[in-house]
């Protein structure tokens, strides 16, 4: 139906911004890109009213270099000096107690016993990047990767650091990166959620759903957990004994009642939208299982991802699923490596070698396969792959004995690949022991800004009006993109 002039979805613009309620339900705040109007394009079936899907695709502000993001979250905090941040000076200091200022779970310390890197490093690729022996497969992909060695975050403690990496703030209640991306761009496939999260089989990360929350935005922008077993999405599968034909019959009967009801309320487009949403749900039931049917892949691909090997089966399957999802237009996929607590993730407080061998062993080959597979299908150009945890680890030991390292948010490494990111580059540096970012220091928000920018969004202008402020993922003061890698 035609919208009255001078109004925004039947409401004043301002009220709409405040409430995002009534009228059409959660409509896309298309205004966020400085344009007025609505995207009404989507139709569930020919005879239904337009379903104004809040996740309808939106034009990016700039020509986008990437369409999707796959965020490989190494939960618990992998040690940068044992993975991608090569520190030759650290080896000879192994076991020596030195003066060094650290801040981690165990508080602030001014001395510590150095734990030398527990793996050898070798050079790979044309760029000659030093990579530790934890990642023999990923080593071969370094020319696709841009390394950020001088990231820092505001908290060295999991709870708040996870929130910071996912939502840009250490306080609970803000939308996560995936929510911002879907809010800004919508989804390219109405039959799939726009923001998918895959968790470790040992459980979610600490703070659970807060990590993929839409915070103060409507729930439509929150991450949807995709499961490996059973119904991939909560309530997607019909209960046993309810066939598709039977469900179609139920939906038709429902529509009969609903159409009669809405006939007397023709001004209320919400009623029609609800009818349409059922048709869309019906279609999702058909398409989503196909999207997650990894077994339909050819054996060579399964082998490439390591799905055929117990050690890499789980993460390999998830990486493969991530490719299938972005192939089908899902905007944001996040995969957790590690879950639960302690050594079920990368949080190596006790035995560093055992912990990192375990987690790297389960992820190295699958991630390398993901990069290879995306590239050969021409998807890598439009997909940003992000690797990293909520922080890194200290060069010194946490306890009197053992190789465990405490958390370190003062300097750590992440890498990006694809989506227009310049491969074979390295930006910034930590000090010679890897304790603190010293050169080209980059706050987590610069990483966020860079991801949004590659997607065609302006990180300093992607706003959501809430609590009297134009809120941004990158904070009130904004953040620059990292020019060296775009």
């Amino acid at each position, binding site marked *: 139906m035609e919208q009255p002039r001078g109004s925004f979805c039947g409401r004043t613009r301002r009220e709409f911004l405040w409430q995002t309620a009534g009228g059409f339900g*959660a409509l896309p705040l298309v205004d966020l890109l400085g344009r007025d109007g609505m995207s009404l394009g989507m139709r569930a079936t020919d005879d239904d009213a337009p379903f104004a899907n809040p996740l309808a695709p939106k034009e990016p502000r700039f020509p986008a270099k990437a369409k999707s993001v796959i965020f490989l979250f190494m939960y618990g905090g992998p040690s940068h000096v044992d993975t991608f941040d090569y520190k030759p000076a650290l080896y000879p200091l192994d076991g020596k107690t030195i003066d060094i200022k650290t801040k981690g779970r165990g508080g602030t310390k001014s001395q510590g016993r150095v734990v030398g890197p527990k793996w050898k490093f070798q050079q790979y690729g044309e760029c000659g990047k030093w990579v530790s022996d934890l990642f023999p497969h990923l080593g071969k992909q370094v020319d696709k990767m841009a390394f950020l060695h001088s990231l820092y975050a505001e908290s060295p403690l999991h709870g708040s650091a996870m929130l910071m990496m996912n939502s840009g703030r250490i306080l*609970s209640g803000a939308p996560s990166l995936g929510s911002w991306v879907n809010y800004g761009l919508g989804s390219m496939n109405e039959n799939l959620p726009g923001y998918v999260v895959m968790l470790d089989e040992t459980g979610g990360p600490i*703070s*659970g*759903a807060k990590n993929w929350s839409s915070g*103060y935005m409507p729930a439509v922008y929150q991450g949807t957990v995709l499961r490996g077993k059973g119904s991939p999405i909560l*309530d997607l599968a019909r209960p046993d004994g309810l066939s598709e034909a039977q469900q179609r019959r139920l939906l038709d009967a429902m529509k009969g009642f609903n159409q009669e009801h809405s006939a007397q309320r023709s001004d209320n487009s919400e009623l029609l939208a609800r009818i349409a949403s059922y048709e*869309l749900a019906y279609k999702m039931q058909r398409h989503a299982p196909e999207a997650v049917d990894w077994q339909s892949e050819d054996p060579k691909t399964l082998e490439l991802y390591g799905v055929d090997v117990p050690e890499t089966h789980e993460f390999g399957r998830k990486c493969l699923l991530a490719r299938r999802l972005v192939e089908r237009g899902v905007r944001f996929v996040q995969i957790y490596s590690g879950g639960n*607590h302690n050594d079920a993730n990368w949080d190596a407080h006790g035995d560093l070698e055992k912990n990192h061998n375990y987690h790297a062993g389960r992820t190295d080959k699958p991630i390398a396969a993901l990069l290879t597979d995306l590239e050969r299908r021409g998807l890598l150009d439009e997909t940003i792959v992000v690797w990293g945890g909520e922080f890194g680890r200290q060069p010194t030991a946490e306890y009197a004995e053992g190789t465990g390292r405490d958390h370190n948010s003062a300097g750590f490494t992440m890498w990006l690949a694809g989506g227009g990111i310049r491969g074979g580059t390295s930006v910034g540096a930590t000090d010679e022991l890897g304790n603190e970012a010293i050169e080209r220091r980059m706050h987590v928000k610069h990483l966020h800004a860079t991801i949004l920018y590659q997607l065609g969004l302006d990180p300093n202008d992607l706003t959501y009006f809430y609590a009297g402020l134009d809120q941004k993922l990158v904070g009130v003061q904004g953040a620059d993109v990292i020019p060296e890698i775009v």
Partner: protein
Amino acid sequence: MAAPRSKKSGITTLGIATLVVAAAWQDAPTKPSDGETTRWCYRPLTRPAVPEGSARQPIDRFIDARLARDGLQPMPAADRGELLRRLHYDLVGLPPTPEEVAAFVADEHPLAYERKVDELLASPQYGVHQARRWLDLVRWAETDSYERDRNKDGAWHYRDFVVDAMNEDMPFDRFVTLQLAGDEVRDASRRDRIATGFLHLGIRDDEPTDPEQAVYDDLDGMADTTGRVFLGISMGCARCHDHKKDPLPSEDYYRFLAFFENLAPYKVGGGNSITPRNFVQTETVDEGPDGNHARIANFERERAELRERIARRAARVTSSATALKMTSALREGLVSDHSRIETGDETGLTVHGATVHEDTRGPYLHFDGLDDWARIPRKVQDDFTIAFRFRTEHAASGAGFHRWHHGDGLVDGEVPGIVQDFGTSILAGGRISAGCGDPEISIVSQPGYDDGAWHEVAFTRERASGRIALYLDGALCAEAIASKAALTTPQELRLGRLAGTNHFFDGDLGDVRIYDRVLTDREITMLTLGTDASTEVEALVEASDGAEAARALRADVQAWTRVTKPEVKTMTFLCAKERRGELAKSYVRIRGNVHSKGKQVEPGFPRMLGDSAMPEIVPAQRSSGRRLALAKWICSDDNPLTARVIANRIWQQHFGRGIVRTPNEFGKLGELPTHPKLLDWLATELRTSGWSLKQLRRTILLSDAYRRSSRAASSQLAKDPQNDAFWRFDPRRLTAEEIRDSILAINGTIDLRLGGPSVYPTMPAEVLATSSRPEAAWGTSSERDAARRSLYIFVKRSLLMPFLTAFDLADTDATCPVRFVTTQPTQALTMLNSDFLHEEAGKFARRLEQEAETLEDRLRRGLSLVMQRPVKQREVERARTLYTSLVHDHALTDALALERVCLVFLNLNEFIYLD
């Protein structure tokens, strides 16, 4: 900008009357002012004249005047069935039954509608529904968020307070006052103190990177919520800089924050801990004649009698010489004796702040609970007994936990992590706990040892068997099998402090003795009864008074170990507690950084609301009196915001939108009122009624405007598409809770009981798996409890019920003034496929089978329950066609076919939307 004012002239009233521009104050959308005038909401609240007109109700006169001016025709009254449904959902959040609909439609009494309004206002379910609306505002949740997402102990008492307050129609000014300062009001009752739980509902990081900043984030949450919820002004942005739109300098923010700044911080010290004793209260509750008081009195009498009998028998045979000998027996294996509190190398005792006092039994240490402690070397690791006496009447840490390392340290060697340590502590509720690590095992006493009397503690540990045992006043309280390792991790033992969490003991501690052996039961009895309880005395009695007398003595001595303190009933709740000692000093914190102190400030009201009124702060016995001063100002007749803000919310709750569409923001960032005079009329009406919300609702519900049809005439729609003028009633979707509660009401299984701890309906396994500890993430409830109203479902910030979140449950982390109303396919998936819907559809079908004989009657009954109006034959036929097709074409059994039809019924738009 701030209104100019003259201090010399002594103008202290709010706003400046001369600045009111008459033209901008008509009852029409107010034009944005040019910056020279005071914003409408800061002007004094006066009762506007009611416009002339034919309507009976003043509300309608205001609305009619605007309709006439805009050339709009109001819609006629809604039909009676629709109206009843509207009333039900607005007042109690539940559907009317078909019988109620029929009776109401047939009731021709002129006062039928008014009676129905009164009936629903008096329903206990009214409080449940209105409480949920209030909880949206105060960021209601029962956990803290972040890594551990800890439970807020006893938070549900606050929820029950809100339900009761709504049902009792507690005057709103009282309701506000109790939430801010229930502990500071005169003769504060327990319930008054429970109301201050309001202050503690926010998110709280138990392991923040900057603990001091985190405490201020928490205080900011209180101040900001207070500003938005009670005053409709957002002050949060002034935390970092002067407000960009409203005349609120940063300094005013910190003056406002100062009202809360003397509250004890939720977290003291580092580590992953919080300090519950700073905001959680555990008290014994007496339950009538057989209550705690009576049982404790019995217990004390019994012990006194035993003690006396033992002493009498022993006195006949003991002399000072034998007594001396016995005492030395208890010295065997005594490796650490601190009963004389001698510091220095010999004893290894070092005292940090604690002071030495003395009573008839000798010296003891007093710990202030803030930072006093002492330490002694750890001389034991295998077998040991730790004995001491203590007394306290102050609440301790660790509510809800029965682990020793969550409490305030007594004699303790806790070392964080999975290590070989041990110790004793006092927990909230006055429970004594002891335990050791690797594996971590705690044993715990009955509550109530924080009664201000001296108590004797003995904690024994035998390495070979792993047995640990805890004795209170000579009686065995608890025992367990624990670690068999050498407990060597702690370097030292601390007195009055739990290491790692800095939980300081608040009370007295003395006679600390540590043995490197396990004392026998009898020896432990001797710790309290002295040599009277020894075997030597028993032998002397036998020699002197015969075997019978010795047996009697032995029986009494043994009885002593078994007369344990009775289990006392306690309750735990959140409440305001202030810092002790010096008042907190307040500063402007530059750019919101707590470490960057600027100018010192005193508590004060925002100057844009009348600066020179200095708060009258009267210190109370245990608090600064600051919050009460704030509450008085918020509720004072001079405050123009409070009444307007709540009147607007009540209007919003019945009309779907406020007269000001931004209910938490009346300042310049917000919308202007569509009917400013009507709002002021409602606000003054509320005040003159003694702040009765029920009366205000009644007035609103009796207006013609409320009773209008929700249908839209296209001519009106074209002129006023947003219904700014209230020419019709805006239809709305039910809220998440209303949908769930209605489903349960319709299938007849809803449990309408009020109050009590929250319940845990089944959480889908898929959703549990998202938690980092799936097995410990959620509780269980009986089927009956699981069918309670949604208000009573436990609200865990990191794990919310998916059904409720799908339908736009309020955000839990910040105040939520207006809920989102989204329409999305995931809702449809939940309504079509979820276990919950299928189970409820099944119950619905069983109900229909019970209540009606024929298929036609069942279908008609089902539709009338869902639609809450007379059902048309055509509709029954449509349902029958579906049913028949399910049986014939899809080969469903009759029972299953009816379930599927019920599923369709529960999915109907007519059920989910309200006219």
